């Protein structure tokens, strides 16, 4: 099998590290990206990532871990509309649904 579903997790904010930007360069159609820990700041509508997210036609889905958003006071903030919020059970489901998980 040379086509695999892949989950990418990133835990750095886009201004503290270029990991998210690098990860997105290696993200292909059918892949999922999950923002955890400090990477959840990237989900803010106005962040260094604004305008840099893959568009809807890319086949890439971006998720953000809700408990990490809440911890950082971001739940009530203006977040990027295409980024889906999930909790830990959702994180577990994403891992099972994808063949390979890369933690950047």
């Amino acid at each position: 099998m040379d086509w695999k579903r892949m989950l990418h997790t990133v835990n750095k904010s886009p201004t503290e590290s270029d990991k998210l930007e690098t990860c997105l360069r290696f993200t292909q159609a059918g892949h999922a990206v999950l923002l955890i820990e400090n990477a959840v700041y990237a989900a803010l509508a106005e962040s260094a990532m604004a305008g840099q997210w893959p568009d809807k036609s890319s086949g890439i889905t971006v998720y953000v871990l809700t408990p990490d958003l809440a911890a950082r006071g971001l739940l009530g903030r203006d977040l990027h509309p295409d980024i889906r919020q999930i909790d830990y059970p959702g994180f577990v489901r994403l891992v099972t649904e994808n063949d390979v998980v890369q933690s950047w």
Partner: protein
Amino acid sequence: MKFALLINTGPYQHQAADTAYQFARAALAEGHTIRRIFFYQDGVYNASRLSVPPQDDRHIVRRWSALAAEHRIELLLCSASALRRGILDKEGARVNAIDTDNLAPGFRLAGLAQLIDAGIEADRLLSFAD
């Protein structure tokens, strides 16, 4: 599904050990299996029984020990990473003539080969790192 976890950062300083724990709890609650959690690099600090956090904070080390006992999970440390960072089992203390070991219950020193082995055996190997 069978998961193996790899933790490469120490407790408290970085959130990765907390994320790994919350993930493990959620996975087990969903009926998945975790056979082995491997601690590498600064991750070995998760195993020090000499850790004394303030009373109102979570006790990360004891939390791992309890999880392992409850779900029969192997908690393995890379021995080279552990020894150079002062995390010793009884044998390591004896051989190096050091007055105490400091491995918390449920943790064991192992070789890196056992991380590879965990990766082969599990359906998914997940790493949590800085």
